[in-house]
């Protein structure tokens, strides 16, 4: 039957490109015996105490809506967590908002700040939803490219060159998906100087903050004078292995949180109640699980980086998250061709780099959030795959 409904779709949605990751998902899902390094989420199951606390909240009958901004108890716990972990203090009642994943926080942050035609500088390669979210909010994403030359760390000078009189904000994500690159204090300070000079706002996606392996994490909001210019976005998905719970948050100055909460209350009402009770337990009693998972990721990162470099796919040591971003340029293939051939010939799924922005071309994203057994097997298969492809 012919579907005539397409002409009802709004023009700007027609123009929105579907995520390139989708096509790859369809390909990989039809095959057997695939080892996937294509998964952007932890391989751990949520710590049991968190699951149990959520059960218990349901048993007690906590099944109604919470306050729009989220359970006050959770915001208070979050406020002290942010203070102890990252030395940033936010008022639980006025400066924090619990959202449906960090993704929703990003969405409403842009909807709250963008006037039609405002530009937002986006650092690519990046998570797939940034540019579309900005467009959906009526803004113009302006891409700056983090290059391998600087270990995929964006330079403040590159940001500065992209600034126009329409620039409203800069979106940064450190540690980064897909490169794993983490900005150091120096780099953040330089970006802060540019932000101050041009009177900009920073949307700082810090979802991988707790998965930084060799240094301690610096929140952009903790840099001098930056708290009033930062929308800090994070969530429970990555550090606590709670992706499916869909729970994130935004921390920002009062007026911005009030504006975001306005959108939130009309479109979502509140984040799921049982997930909020789980998150409360996560903040209170799961730090040891986080450290255990983090140690395991670090060990796997070391293993994978060494294995990839040895097989001829050069790759820098990423500071955080659970991705490595090796160059496949030596093979002469595009990242799409590489990923497809690797899947067909050796049944290993990786994500072609161009999915994360044009500057990702020539690279693939490998997630090491999978068991050592699977990783070892995947590295062996990739080595065989590369045998006749690299001179």
């Amino acid at each position, binding site marked *: 039957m012919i579907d005539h409904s397409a002409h009802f779709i709004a023009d700007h949605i027609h123009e929105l490109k579907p995520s390139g990751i989708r096509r790859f998902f369809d390909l990989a899902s039809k095959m057997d015996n695939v080892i996937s390094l294509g998964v952007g989420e932890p391989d751990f199951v949520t710590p049991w105490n968190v699951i149990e606390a959520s059960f218990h909240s349901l048993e007690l009958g906590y099944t109604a809506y919470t306050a729009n901004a989220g359970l006050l108890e959770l915001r208070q716990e979050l406020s002290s967590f942010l203070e102890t972990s990252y030395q940033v203090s936010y008022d639980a009642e006025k400066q924090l908002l619990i959202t449906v994943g960090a993704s929703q926080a990003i969405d409403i942050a842009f909807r709250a700040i963008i006037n039609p035609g405002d530009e937002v500088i986006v650092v690519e390669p990046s998570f797939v939803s940034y540019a579309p979210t900005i467009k959906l909010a009526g803004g113009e994403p302006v891409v700056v490219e983090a290059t391998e030359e600087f270990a995929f760390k964006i330079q403040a000078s590159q940001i500065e060159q992209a600034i126009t009189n329409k620039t409203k904000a800069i979106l940064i994500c450190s540690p980064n998906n897909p490169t794993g690159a983490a900005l150091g204090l120096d780099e953040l300070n330089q970006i802060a100087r540019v932000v101050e000079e041009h009177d900009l706002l920073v949307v700082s996606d810090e979802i991988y903050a707790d998965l930084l392996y060799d240094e301690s994490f610096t929140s952009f909001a903790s840099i001098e004078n930056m708290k009033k210019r930062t929308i800090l976005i994070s969530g429970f998905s990555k550090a606590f292995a709670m992706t499916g719970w869909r729970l994130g948050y935004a921390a920002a100055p009062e007026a911005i949180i009030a504006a975001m909460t306005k959108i939130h209350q009309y479109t979502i009402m509140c984040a799921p109640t049982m997930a909020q009770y789980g998150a409360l337990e996560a903040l209170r009693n799961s730090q040891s699980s986080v450290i255990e998972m983090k140690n395991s990721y670090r060990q796997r990162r*070391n*293993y994978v980086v060494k294995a990839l470099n040895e097989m001829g796919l050069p790759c820098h040591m990423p500071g955080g998250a659970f991705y490595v971003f090796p160059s496949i340029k030596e093979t002469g293939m595009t990242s799409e061709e590489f990923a497809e051939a690797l899947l067909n010939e050796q049944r290993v799924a990786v994500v072609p780099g161009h999915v994360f922005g044009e500057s990702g071309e020539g690279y693939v994203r490998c997630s090491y959030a999978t068991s050592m057994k699977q990783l070892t097997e995947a590295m062996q298969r990739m080595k065989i795959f590369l045998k006749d492809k690299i001179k």
Partner: protein
Amino acid sequence: MEQKEVELLQLLEKNGRLPADTIASMLDLGIDEVASMIEKLEHECVILGYSTLVNWAKVLKHESVTAMIEVKVTPVRGKGFDHVAERIYRFPEVKALYLMSGSYDLSITLEGQTMMEISRFVSDKLSTLDSVVSTVTHFVLKKYKHDGVVFDKNDDQDRRMMVTP
């Protein structure tokens, strides 16, 4: 003990068969360093052995019986509990022995082929020891988890989608 030694121990405790070169990559060490670290830890008796966790319930005709026995004893002057403990742990069928706080003193994990074997051990060997005052024997009906490993293999299935952003 340095951090890398602790990590090495944690890795081997989970998987005693992890190859040295893999451990070396994971901990960012040379293979030789890992080998000498393991040797040192074995020498110091920090590493006491490498064993395999077997689900004997799945091996036909080799199903075994496990019992946990609570034992109350009279400690011997000058030797405390150690003397009687040694008398007990020398028996090869004693798989584990702990000194406990609380309402009894020693906890024994005993393995045998049959219930009869266990009861014979308790009545002939254990109860007849001079310092043993009383025993309570509990038989294990089903093992769900042992040494951190869940026996039901469906437990560690990867339930994630194949590719996600």
